[in-house]
Each structure stands twice: as structure tokens, then as C-alpha cells.
């Protein structure tokens, strides 16, 4: 991976769309999504179509600006993630998933991480009554299934992309590792990287621990203050969230974030204030929560990021037909 593949010179739309590599990457993406749907439907999940606009969206994205929509004179937002709708949809179904488009005007510094797109998709999964461990179990089996599915159905595309398949096979070879956020911070610090204790793992730090890992692993128990208000706080370990990220090896980094969700009205109100948000704008969601929403756990898997891993691509923009990098006007 080099800085010049990070986006300074994206190909023209024609060059990108007619490239064999793009075609192979997008085919891989299609196969992975087909495999994911097979897996989830066989486990009793219902696929729903996600809303793309609403009066509020997920505020949990680090430093990213939401896109405002003039909705008949009301300020609406493009979804940065569908988390609030995922929780609400459990009023209809116990196990749901979306393949959801998201838009985040990311800080310009993320244009060079190889991992950020302004417009991207998430495979969103939510399970009523589930614990974090239940969600992590589904996440592990789902991603392994998708890797196997791609290995067995997309050999030609993997060859075009010159993908080293040993790394893919390694994903399926062993259980995913697990470490707490505090352990990941300690490991990073031991390498000399200056990672703060109470914040998200920084982009560079994440790449370092991802590069050093032989297998995928979960990082659990992020500190409050690093995530959105909907990640449930551990009642027995205040200040620590019942959440997780899934990190893939080889420097590919974070593929997924998930958690047990907060569903209690008073706790949600507290957490909304702790994240500096104005409760008034969450009126529809808080009304549902006040009347009762199911407890749940779930996650969102980055579709382009996972495609990047499957194809061994240099940068995530190669997994999109119409990539939009932070700050760059593109079709």
C-alpha cells in the first residue's frame, strides 16, 4: 500500500469502470453479499430495506459531518448509519438485516487511510434479546461463511486480483481472537505508539495491530466517550461499553463495529447528554424508547472494507464503482 493509491489520483470513471480489476472486485462483492444473504436467511433473519433519510441519524461517527436535506422545510439527514431504525425495526421482527447505504462527510485527514469512503455500505444486523456474545458469534460465523463462499465461487476473480488466498483460508482456520480495548492500548503503547487510554484506537494504531495479527480478532469493551450513545454501558464495570470491533489481519483493520444496545429511556437520555447531543431532535426515537423497545445486540459490517480484504485491494475505493474520497468531488 502506498500513498499514491490513497486517492490523490483516482482513475477516470471510464478507466475505473472498464478495468478488469474493478470488475473482479465488484463481482467478489456481489458473491460475498449473496453468501451473506444465504447465511442470514438460513438463520431466520428477515432482510428489510433501510431508510436513507430521517430527522436524525447516527451521531457516533468520529468528526464526520452529516449531510443535511431540505425536507419540505425540515432539516433531515442522510443516514450515517441506520442504527436507530435497526432498533426500532425489532418491534416488527426479532432478527433483521439491511444492506444499507451510508454517507459521512469524513474529516479530510481520512482521505489517506485507504479505509474511508464518504459514501459506503454496511451489512447491518440486529438481533432482539441478544447479548454481545451472541452478536459476536453471528459475526464470526457470517464472515467465515462469506470467505468460504468467495473462495468456492470466485476463484477466477481472486486470480485476476492476484489475491494471496492463504490469508483467506487462515480466516476460517481458527476461532477469532478477543482482547479488551485496554489490552489493545497497552500493546500499542508497548510498540512505542502513543495511543490515548480513553479514546478510540487511532487509524494508524489500528493498522499496526492489524498488520501484526495472524487471525481476525475482536476488540471489546471500549471506553464510554469513544462511541455513540446507543452502545450499552456495562452496569458492572461503569465507563466501559458492551461493544466490539472486528479487526482483520494484514493491515486491513476494522471491518465491523457492534454492541449490545441501550434500550432504556432514562439511560438513553443520560447517554445522549453525555455525547453532547440535543435530546429534542431524537423525539421519535426517544418516544419509542419511552414506550419500550426490545433489548438487542447487533453490528454493521463495512461492505467495501470487507470486499477490500477479500480481494486484497490496496485501498477501499477500489471496492466501489463510484468511489468518493473525503474532500474530492467525484460522480
Amino acid at each position, binding site marked *: 500500500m502506498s500513498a499514491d493509491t490513497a486517492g490523490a489520483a483516482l482513475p477516470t470513471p471510464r478507466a475505473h469502470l472498464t478495468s478488469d480489476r474493478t470488475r473482479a472486485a465488484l463481482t467478489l462483492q456481489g458473491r460475498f453479499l449473496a453468501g451473506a444473504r444465504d447465511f442470514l436467511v438460513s438463520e431466520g433473519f428477515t432482510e428489510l430495506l433501510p431508510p436513507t433519510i430521517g430527522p436524525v441519524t447516527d*451521531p457516533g461517527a468520529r*468528526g464526520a459531518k452529516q449531510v443535511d436535506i431540505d425536507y419540505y422545510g425540515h432539516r433531515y439527514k442522510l443516514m450515517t448509519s441506520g442504527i436507530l431504525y435497526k432498533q426500532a425495526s425489532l418491534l416488527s421482527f426479532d432478527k433483521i438485516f439491511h444492506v444499507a447505504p451510508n454517507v459521512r462527510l469524513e474529516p479530510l*485527514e481520512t482521505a489517506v487511510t485507504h479505509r474511508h469512503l464518504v459514501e459506503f455500505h454496511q451489512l447491518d444486523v440486529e438481533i432482539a434479546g441478544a447479548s454481545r456474545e451472541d452478536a459476536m458469534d453471528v459475526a464470526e460465523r457470517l464472515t467465515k461463511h462469506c470467505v468460504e463462499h468467495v473462495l468456492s465461487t470466485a476463484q477466477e476473480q481472486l486470480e485476476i486480483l492476484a489475491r494471496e488466498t492463504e490469508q483467506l483460508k487462515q480466516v476460517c482456520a481458527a476461532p477469532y481472537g478477543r482482547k479488551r480495548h485496554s489490552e489493545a492500548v497497552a500493546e500499542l503503547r508497548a510498540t512505542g505508539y502513543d495511543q490515548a487510554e*480513553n*479514546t478510540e484506537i487511532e487509524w494508524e494504531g489500528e493498522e499496526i495491530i492489524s498488520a501484526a495479527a495472524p487471525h481476525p480478532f475482536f476488540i471489546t469493551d471500549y471506553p464510554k*466517550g469513544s462511541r455513540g450513545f446507543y452502545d450499552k454501558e456495562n452496569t458492572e464495570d461503569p465507563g466501559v461499553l458492551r461493544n466490539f470491533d472486528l479487526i482483520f489481519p494484514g493491515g486491513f483493520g476494522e471491518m465491523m463495529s457492534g454492541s449490545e444496545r441501550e434500550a432504556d429511556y432514562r439511560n438513553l437520555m443520560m447517554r445522549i*447528554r*453525555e*455525547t*453532547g447531543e440535543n435530546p429534542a431532535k431524537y423525539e421519535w426515537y426517544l418516544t419509542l424508547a419511552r414506550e419500550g423497545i426490545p433489548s438487542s445486540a447487533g453490528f454493521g459490517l463495512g461492505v467495501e472494507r470487507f470486499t477490500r480484504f477479500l480481494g486484497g485491494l490496496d485501498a477501499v475505493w477500489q471496492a466501489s464503482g463510484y468511489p468518493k474520497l473525503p474532500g474530492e468531488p467525484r460522480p
Partner: protein
Amino acid sequence: MTDLQAPGFAEEHVRARARHGAGSAFPDREGYGSTLFGGAAATLPPPTDPIDRARLVPPVFVPLRLERLFDLGREPLSGDVDLTTDVGGLRSTLPVYISAFGSTAAASDLGLGVAQQAGRLGIPMVIGENIVPVSGYGRMEQEKQSSLLGRITQYIDAAPPDLGGVVVQQSTEDANAEVWNLVYSDPAAQPLLTTGRLAFELKVGQGAKPGVGGMTLVPRARAAELSTQYDIMDLYGPASESVLRCSSPGTFSEEILRQQIRLMRNNYPRCRVWVKLPPGRDVHHAAAVAWAAGADSVTVDGAEGGTGWAPSAFLDQVGLPLAECLDRVTPEENCLLVSGRVWEGARAVKCLALGARAVGLGRAALIATDEDPKLGLENFLECLALEMRLLISALGKYRVSDLSAEDVWMPSAR
């Protein structure tokens, strides 16, 4: 010059300094040679404020001057006082910053002139809350550039590359407009981000109206639109042109404040984190929580401060005065910034000696800029800097950080 007024504030003195610069630190030179000076109050009304009543008390024996004498190989002078200061993680030429003015009409007209001069002088400038929700941001091609964006770009264009910085406030209602996300991801702010000169200030409250949020009068025609975000009070009858727009003060607990600061550090790792507290009775507790959570700076606005519109009861009778805030808050190694009726060097140096790292200019900066939009603030600060140098060197000190409580005599303590 507009019809801007600041009753109860030393407006004429500030205007004189804005016109004439450093010479205004002295009495009118027309009287030189024919007037006998000395004693008190030729220039000021009798002080009632404890900080104004306090006196700076130079010692006879001056060990730090002796050190400076060794360094320089000659007698130290007032010009040898180094006023450069780390103000909440931003490098400033003076222990001074420009306070937020909010979205009042007076402030938005003068904001660009303030930004230009503060930038040129390399002192940090805070941009107030409620600007974006009320006035918009304005970066699309057809839009008029907003007050916030305009002030940021004026500041960047004028400032030396390694000095000063811009501090953007966000209040509870601003969260709807995501002011911080907007600025953090905006190309126009990149020169500040890449040089570590962007800070965000969490506004917990301010001195002029502790316990209530920002208040402005807005045109009646905008009431319906703004009522989706703010409380609108119709105080002057249906025939009047304006209505009162009120922000909420926001609900804070110890945990809410701590987590909001941590979230700022998490989401904006390249920014400094400032917290502005009202002069509440637990201000010392709140400041300690903020510093422990990682705030680069805590600003305390004494109840005598503020540029904004507020009920008279609040202006006159609510909140701790600055002297009491300074007494209660113990910054130790942390950065404490204070504001509240600061316009001349003695009050500023007393605040620094009583624990503040720098002092904020609110009304003084607005009036000086109103007096002369191009040079008024610069002239005014030239005078303030001269006074500070003279006073600090008189105390036998040559660095701002050497000032301490021993330099101040409080008559009330006797």
C-alpha cells in the same frame, strides 16, 4: 464607528486606547507640566469590585530581576518582559484571548474586523455559539459566506503561521447543526488543523447569564423557523418587530461533563479542547472534573463579564464575581482562562497573578474594533501590552508564569 454602547463599562477609555494606542496608558499628555498627578482615581471611578480594589505590590528585593540581570548583562527593562504564553494549547503573543461574542447583531457586524486584527496579532480568538443554527455556514457557491466561515478565513489570512488559533464554541442547540463536525471536515479550516491551531470550546455557560442559555432578540418573521430549535418568548407585544430567542443552558452532571470532554478528544484528535464554565457556586468542582477529563483549558466567565443580552436581574445579581471564582478555583499546572470586565493592564495582571493563564477580552475587543475596524483592536492591545510589561517588570518578574498571589494585596483580607 456605529452606535454600539456598553453602559457600565469603561467604554470611553477603551475608545481612547483604540484611537491612540500605547500613549493612552498615561494620563492626558496635554496636562503634562501643569497638572500634579498622584493619589487616586484621576481616571477611574472608585472601585467596588474586589479585583479592582486589590493592588499590585512590587517588592523592594527582586531575585528574579537579578536572574534576568545575569542573563542580559545589563539592567532589565520593561521591554524584556516576555508576554508570549501558551493559552489552552495555542501559542499567543500575549496572555490574552478574544472571548466569544455570540450571535448578537453588534458582534456579527464587527466580527470580521476583530478576526483580522486578532489574527495579525497572533492571539487566540473564540467564535461564539449559535452562529451556525441562526445564520448558517455558507460554503455553497451561491450562498453568502457566513459569519463563522468569514471569521475563520479572515483570521487565517492575517495570522502568522505558528501563532494564535481559532476556538469554535458549540452549545446544546449547536449540536443539531454539528458546528464542530462542520468545521473539522471543512477545507477552509485545514490551515488551522495542520498547524495545531484549532480548538473547540464546549460551552457549559457564561458569566452574563449563569443558569440560562444564550438570549438574543430576533426578527418576528424568523420566530416560527427558529422555534423548532429554540424557545421563543414574545415579550413586547404583537406589534413589536422582535421576539426573544432563548437557548437552553443544557443539562450537566459530573459524568455528562466528563464524557462530553472525552468524546471531543475522541472525535477531534487534532483539536485542542476548551471548556467554558459559568460562575456557578461549584465552579471549582466543575473545573477539576474538566481538567481531569483532559480539557486543555477551562474558561471561567466572572458574573461581571459578558457581551450578551440578558435580564437585568441576571446581569446585576446572579453568579459569582470573578474575584471569588479565582479564589475558589485552583488550577495548579492546568490552564485557567478568565474573563470579566477586563480592559486595562492592572486588572489583567491581577487575574494572572491570582491563577489565570490568560484573560479574555469581550466588550473591550468589540468597542475597540467599533472605534476603528482596521486598527482599533491593535492599538488597544498595544496599550494593554505596554501596561502589562510595565506592571510585570515592576513586580520584578519577566515571565507571565512567574506571577503569583504574592504580587497582589487584597484590602478585604485586612
